[in-house]
């Protein structure tokens, strides 16, 4: 008798929980939408001007790249404080190689990526194999690479870069037609519109396929009307976004890099064996080890990965600044970490999604951008951002507590 009561109790909590699991992702999207609406009115519509949308991407791209890597590190219940310094160090190397030594852009980028991987391996070695807490390893690297950056740059900025390098952060995908087309009285970039349309097609195609596979295996699928509404909303948002890009200069090259990274890492975390194992290590390292998972190698790998992504962010940021500078990337680690936590990752590891980290990153980005437009000074911006991080995580904790 008691047993059945217990089972019922479990069934009840879990019913609401599963709903909440999906709600979580939706509620973050809602938070971002609300924030956009709020700043749309506060900025008198400037927030959603085509130019500003492109700026939002260019301003937050490097943080997003860092947040993706940071998420994997945080899922393993570790942290990386050094990414800001690595961004600066890699930017400095790029500047020295390209500007001072006149080495080509492609070889330089390859060297930068290898340097990032090596720095990641260095940190991974101490963290995974010597078992030094990640906080300490990366705090040390934060100082080491900031110091080395200043040393190799001799305390000065080195620039400017040739256009071919700057293009990473400032160019746009060329239009397939020579003249922008005129639509609804606006000049529009045809490539961006076509890209948006293709992505919509892909989304619908993918979801229909998934639905079909599910029914083939005999699983429940969501109600057809809900499915259609979801597709309409997703395609509508995608088209609106690409319309705004089309109304400015088209698709930024950086956006292509971001989309590729997001697709790869979403896939790895949600579908691959390695992704599942990373979650297992963060959830319970001992149990993961006793399930045959090489936990050390996996922690090492997440560190190397973080190093490479830091290098990519470093290249992107240097290209945007058009120089390698000693102060580059200061505080980036905190923005990346905050993105993950706002996006629902747990400090204790084992949870968090790429989609969440992206949403967290854009919540921060929209706030930065919106507050700058309406003229909130940097000091208050910092304070408000600090409060938002606390609130976001507090709401999550309280919701979890209530569940129990």
């Amino acid at each position: 008798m008691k047993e059945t009561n217990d089972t019922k109790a479990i069934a009840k909590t879990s019913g609401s929980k599963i709903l909440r699991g999906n709600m979580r992702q939706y509620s973050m999207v809602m938070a971002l939408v609300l924030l956009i609406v709020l700043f749309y009115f506060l900025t008198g519509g400037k927030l959603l001007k085509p130019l500003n949308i492109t700026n939002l991407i260019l301003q937050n791209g490097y943080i997003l790249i860092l947040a993706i890597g940071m998420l994997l590190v945080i899922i393993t219940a570790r942290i990386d404080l050094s990414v800001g310094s690595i961004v600066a160090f890699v930017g400095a190397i790029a500047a020295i190689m390209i500007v001072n030594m006149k080495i080509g852009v492609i070889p330089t980028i390859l060297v930068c990526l290898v340097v990032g991987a090596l720095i990641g391996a260095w940190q991974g070695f101490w963290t995974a194999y010597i078992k030094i807490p990640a906080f300490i390893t990366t705090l040390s690297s934060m100082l080491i690479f900031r110091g080395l950056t200043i040393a190799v740059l001799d305390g000065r900025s080195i620039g400017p870069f040739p256009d071919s390098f700057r293009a990473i952060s400032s160019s746009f995908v060329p239009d397939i037609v020579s003249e922008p087309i005129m639509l609804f009285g606006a000049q529009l970039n045809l490539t961006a519109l076509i890209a948006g349309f293709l992505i919509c097609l892909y989304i619908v195609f993918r979801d229909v396929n998934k639905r079909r596979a599910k029914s083939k295996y005999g699983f429940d699928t969501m109600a057809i009307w809900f499915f259609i509404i979801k597709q309409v909303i997703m395609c509508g948002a995608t088209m609106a976004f690409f319309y705004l890009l089309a109304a400015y200069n088209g698709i930024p090259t950086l956006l292509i890099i971001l989309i590729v990274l997001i697709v790869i890492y979403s896939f790895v975390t949600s579908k691959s064996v390695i992704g599942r194992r990373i979650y297992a290590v963060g959830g319970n390292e001992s149990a993961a080890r006793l399930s045959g998972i090489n936990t050390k190698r996996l922690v090492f790998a997440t560190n190397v990965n973080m190093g490479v992504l830091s290098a990519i962010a470093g290249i992107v940021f240097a290209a945007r600044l058009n120089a390698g500078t000693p102060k580059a990337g200061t505080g980036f680690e905190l923005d990346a970490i905050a993105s993950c936590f706002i996006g629902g990752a747990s400090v204790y590891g084992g949870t968090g999604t790429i989609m969440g980290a992206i949403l967290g990153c854009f919540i921060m980005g929209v706030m930065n951008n919106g507050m700058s437009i309406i003229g909130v000074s940097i000091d208050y911006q910092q304070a408000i951002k600090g409060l938002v991080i606390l609130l976001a995580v507090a709401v999550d904790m309280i919701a979890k507590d209530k569940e129990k």
Partner: protein
Amino acid sequence: MSEIILEMENITKHFPGVLALDNVNFSVKEGEIHALVGENGAGKSTLMRILSGVLPHGSYTGQIKFENKKYDIKSIKQSEEKGIAIIHQEFALSPYLSIAENIFLGNENSKAGIVNWEMTQNKAVELTKRVGLVEDVSVLIKDIGVGKRQLVEIAKALSKNVKLLILDEPTAALNEDDSENLLKLLLALKEKGLTSILISHKLGEVIEVADTVTILRDGQTIETIAKGDITEARIIKGMVGRELTDRFPKREHTIGDILFNVEDWNAYHPTHHDKKITDDVNINVRAGEVVGIAGLMGAGRTEFAMSVFGKSYGVNISGKAYMNGKQIDTGTVGKSIKNGLAYISEDRKGLGLILRSSVKDNITLPNLEKVSKAMVINENEEVIVADKAVEAFRIKCPTIEQETNDLSGGNQQKVVLAKWLFCESEVYIMDEPTRGIDVGAKHEVYTVVNNLAAEGKAIIFISSELPEILGVCDRIYVMSEGKIVGEMLSEEADQEKIMRLLV
């Protein structure tokens, strides 16, 4: 001979779903060493937790009198003020503080919050002398061995002007010399008038030092024996005198050839490198056979199993493992799994499950490749596997996406079993697979064991519950202090025989 110092009358204590103590009577005379014995789960610890105030007055029924006064204490602090101190199996010492600081931890020689270090030092020296500890009192706890730590614990108790000292398995972690010293110290302290209660599984030392022995079984006092009448046979009879019922499902067995064996297996403690935790173990298990390893807590069974499975515990591990007569490498967990081993941990929350992951994710974790193609998980395939397991094991969960954290102990254990069965191993080492789960779930675990044996798999079944070992296994090894001290077929075995080997 002397006054009664402690009198516990009709103590009854319920835990949710369990009657831990059932009208227990227990009285201790002043100046004696009173041994309290019983199997794991007999109620010894619960009784001592009541006495030391961990379980406060009001949470149990019955009366306690200490020095002829009512003893209604609500906290450990109060029990210490009355002069009762308990030394737990796990030391309550702070490793990075010195011996002197630890002795007076929580009881500092201070005035207005300022510690008088000179007084601390002098008193500590005096106390260490009393317990025969030869060590500078400024040495850190982490730098001394377990034997000396045990003496620090006793010095700490003495510093509080203890009248009644409770020792819970004080020699479990000690080697023979240290144990002998400790027992001598107990006798010396008795000469000076200290009363003590000794909880021990080692009947040899009980007989050596105890003036009186009280036996508990299933939460009841069986008998209290005075010096002169204490014999090993009488104690064992009192401890195990329980009848076997048909709690164990019958099994049709066809036992085949030796499937897995371990030769000359040795391992040492991970931090105390000189302590052997597994001592020349040789065991084998045949296809379709269930082999038990009986032993008390701390006998080294888990340590042995984990040292074999991926060398997950201990250092300087040596020995050979064979599967089907061919030597296999068990150096990492991955290799062990590939070679057909599965280890189902006794610590299902700490080592068995990812509590924050779903039932589904836990089940497929050790063999993700089976539901993957080119390192990409086929989630639909995974759901089918998990659904099947939930049905086969009757895991009570609303969906396979349920976090395992929210399941009952029995259902968690079934998830762990499902996880390892999904690995399709040949040899299953099950470490206390029924600990802390109810009778119904136990029965289902036994059924799983039987089904595996019927399929020709081999099972090594570790348990502290002798009736369970006798009911489930075909053959039994008895382990004590890391050594195999006996082997018998279960039809030839009985609890008394095993118990005699254990103590």
